């Protein structure tokens, strides 16, 4: 019996070469014209938002965008209604099937100028950061909402996040009828243990979130509109990740929505699916704060990988931080115990020591370790900007040393994970860590 795959996602990419203000929002000859007034009106429908700053940002602009909370690739569903970022702005429905339009070369930069967070990310469009970041070469719409009176801080953060997603959908919708530059099809049958193949079955373990830095003790929603603090390891379809079921947390720590929409490991496994391997599916889980829970979740995750997906091998990626490192290693160890070969991503947390010194686990079987980036490597950035978006020259920039520094200082000393578009916890960056 033959049948069509249940989850077939077609991503139609359109290259946008320029962004310009316009009397209406539409695209012509790869130029996207944006009626900022109309976009503003859409974003102001959310009563938690008092006003919103909207700016165009281009490579080479001497501008520093601060309080950066997310970067979103403009995308919209073509053949479904109310299906964009389900649970966040769309209705609750399964993401990952049908046709999606995706704009390349532009993004939405989402800033929260009212942020009280210790960590907040930044992007410069000129100078060192622009050279390092993939976003430095792209064109952007920067949006920065301000808080309406009487809004709770965390509630407002959710509003900012959603404003970014809405803006991304709004831009993508405006390009209807434009020629499509590339069509990618992501199609994967539900896992079947019975299928005969000589190819190894490779699964992906996706550590989605860690609650360790929850701002004022509340987790960020990042999965179909909800948070996943207490998520029991579960199986999701990889297309759900690519197509808006998962978004970035409220802080960019070497990870944002754009990075998830272009998920490095998932795309790589898809590319090799049917050629070198069978992509057996995705198990997602979270980093756990408590040791007994951690053991239980690691056991359950490994069982899903082995006994449900029937995987021979698994790639595991982590979220930013030390606790997630420990947690992920335990999942890998449990997988190896069950005979599933692992490749685990780690992130050295300091730049001092040998690579071996930076491991936070001691498990002989976990012997294939990929260094996704020393995301906490420090770098001194001379100021090249004369304009600030999403905040001001007085916006604080985090440094782990006990010093206070501001966005307008002549030089800031930052860790690279706070520079949007440099590192990528999901494996999409061409970075490796070496001893020097």
């Amino acid at each position, binding site marked *: 019996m033959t049948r069509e795959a249940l989850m077939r996602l077609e991503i139609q990419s359109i290259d946008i070469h320029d962004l310009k203000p316009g009397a209406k929002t539409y695209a012509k000859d790869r130029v996207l014209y944006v009626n900022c007034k109309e976009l503003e009106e859409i974003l102001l429908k959310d009563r938690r938002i008092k006003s919103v700053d909207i700016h165009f940002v281009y490579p080479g602009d001497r501008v520093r965008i601060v309080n950066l909370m997310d970067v979103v690739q403009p995308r919209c569903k073509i053949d479904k209604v109310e299906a964009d970022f389900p649970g966040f702005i769309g209705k609750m429905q399964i993401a990952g099937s049908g046709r999606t339009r995706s704009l390349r070369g532009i993004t939405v930069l989402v800033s929260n100028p009212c942020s009280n967070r*210790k960590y907040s990310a930044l992007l410069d469009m000129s100078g*060192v950061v622009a050279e*390092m970041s993939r976003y430095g070469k792209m064109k952007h719409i920067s949006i920065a909402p301000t808080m309406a009176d009487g809004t709770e801080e965390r509630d407002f953060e959710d509003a900012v996040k959603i404003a970014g997603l809405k803006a991304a959908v709004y831009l993508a919708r405006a390009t209807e009828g434009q020629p499509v530059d590339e069509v990618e099809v992501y199609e994967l049958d539900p896992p079947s243990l019975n299928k005969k193949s000589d190819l*190894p079955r*490779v699964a992906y373990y996706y550590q989605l979130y860690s609650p*360790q830095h929850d701002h004022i003790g509340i987790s960020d929603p990042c999965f179909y509109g909800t948070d996943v603090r207490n998520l029991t390891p579960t199986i999701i379809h990889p297309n759900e990740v690519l197509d808006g079921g998962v978004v970035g947390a409220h802080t960019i720590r070497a990870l944002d929505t754009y990075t998830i929409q272009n998920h*490095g*490991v998932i*795309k*790589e*496994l898809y590319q*090799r699916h049917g050629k*070198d*391997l069978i992509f057996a599916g995705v198990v997602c889980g979270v980093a756990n704060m408590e040791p007994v829970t951690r053991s239980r979740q690691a056991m359950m995750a490994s069982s899903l990988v082995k006994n449900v997906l029937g995987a*021979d*091998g698994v*790639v595991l990626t982590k979220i930013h*931080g*030390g606790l997630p490192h420990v947690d992920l290693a335990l999942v890998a160890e449990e997988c190896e115990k069950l005979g599933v*070969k692992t*490749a685990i*991503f780690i992130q050295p*947390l*300091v*730049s*001092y*020591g*040998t*690579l*071996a*010194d*930076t491991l936070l686990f*001691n498990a*002989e079987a*976990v012997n*294939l*370790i*990929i*260094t*996704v*980036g*020393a995301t*906490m*490597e420090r*770098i001194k950035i001379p100021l090249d900007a004369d304009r600030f978006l999403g905040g001001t020259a007085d916006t604080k920039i985090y440094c*782990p040393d*006990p010093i206070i520094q501001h966005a307008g200082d002549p030089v800031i000393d930052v860790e*690279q994970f706070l520079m949007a578009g*440099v590192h*990528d916890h999901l*494996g*999409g*960056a*061409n*970075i*490796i*860590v*070496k*001893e*020097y």
Partner: protein
Amino acid sequence: MNGKKLKVVHYLNQFFGQIGGEEKAEIGFVVKAGPIGPGLALQRALGEKADVVTTVICGDNYFSKNPEQAGEEGLKLIEPYHPDLFFAGPAFAAGRYGVACGGICKAVGERLEIPVITGMYPENPGVDMYRKYAYICKTGNSARNMAESISHMTRLAFKLISGEQGAHLVSRENLPGPGEYDYFSRIILRNEYTDKTAAERSVEKLLAKLRGEPFESEVILPKFERVAPPPPIKDLHACEIILVSDGGLVPKGNPDGLSGRGNLRWTTYEIDTFLPENFKSSDYEIAHTGYFPVQILEDPNRLVPVDIMRELIKEGKIGRLHPHFFSTSGNATVSRRCAEMGDEMGEEIKKRGVEAVILTST
């Protein structure tokens, strides 16, 4: 590098400095003009670009007996020449000479902020002692390899002084690759650009692992040593106990600058002034971003249990509480530095004659 000739100072021991053999190993510092012995080969390798203006010589025993002090003494002799580059040795497998080359490089590099280059055989104890502070080129175990070793050292030196940007590094620093330039890594990590993404590397290597083929992990697993617990204390009544914590408790303002994450420092505070019985919670802060410090800020005794210790002393259950408390912040600190700090604290605790330590963590 402009047209100006670079000034080079070269360090040698008594033997290579042509003062004498083992019988002259006690001799102190001697300064001679121009290149001497291996310095001639160095000058040849440097060619027209640089001049060995001075050779500083010291006996191996004199230097290695007190490397810190000797380094300072040597630095004073070197400083007036305002060198652009500093070379020492190479020391090959000679242990005391290796320590001397490393020690002088450390002093010069830290103070004059110029590239310092030496050469050693991998088993030379100077490698592990000084690799952090100097570029130590890998050499053979004897002077037979002199010319080749010196040519490696000069090649590395020219790279270091070139002012080129390291386009292969995310940080753009001009750091030569230890493999390409044949030196012992200085135990630092750097993000490097690479052809393949982490995703591509992970899947490719995993497939090799699945096929049972050789695969290359990007990190080689460390071998952890087992630490045997010390024998228990026989008489607690007569014992002096010190409190040590990695919870990051510091006075308000964090005067010693402990970092909240990836901290590499530790410090001491006098208990009577730092944590008196009538402490004020507003006097403290926590230099540690890895836990919620609210309860500890309310009562720092919950991290550093001075109150309980005072009670136990009153009850006669323990002898004394050491008047100082050692504070550090252990949050994503690399294990190597943790071990070093442990050694440093252990040495200090021993020196103070304290018999027992209570370590409190978070």
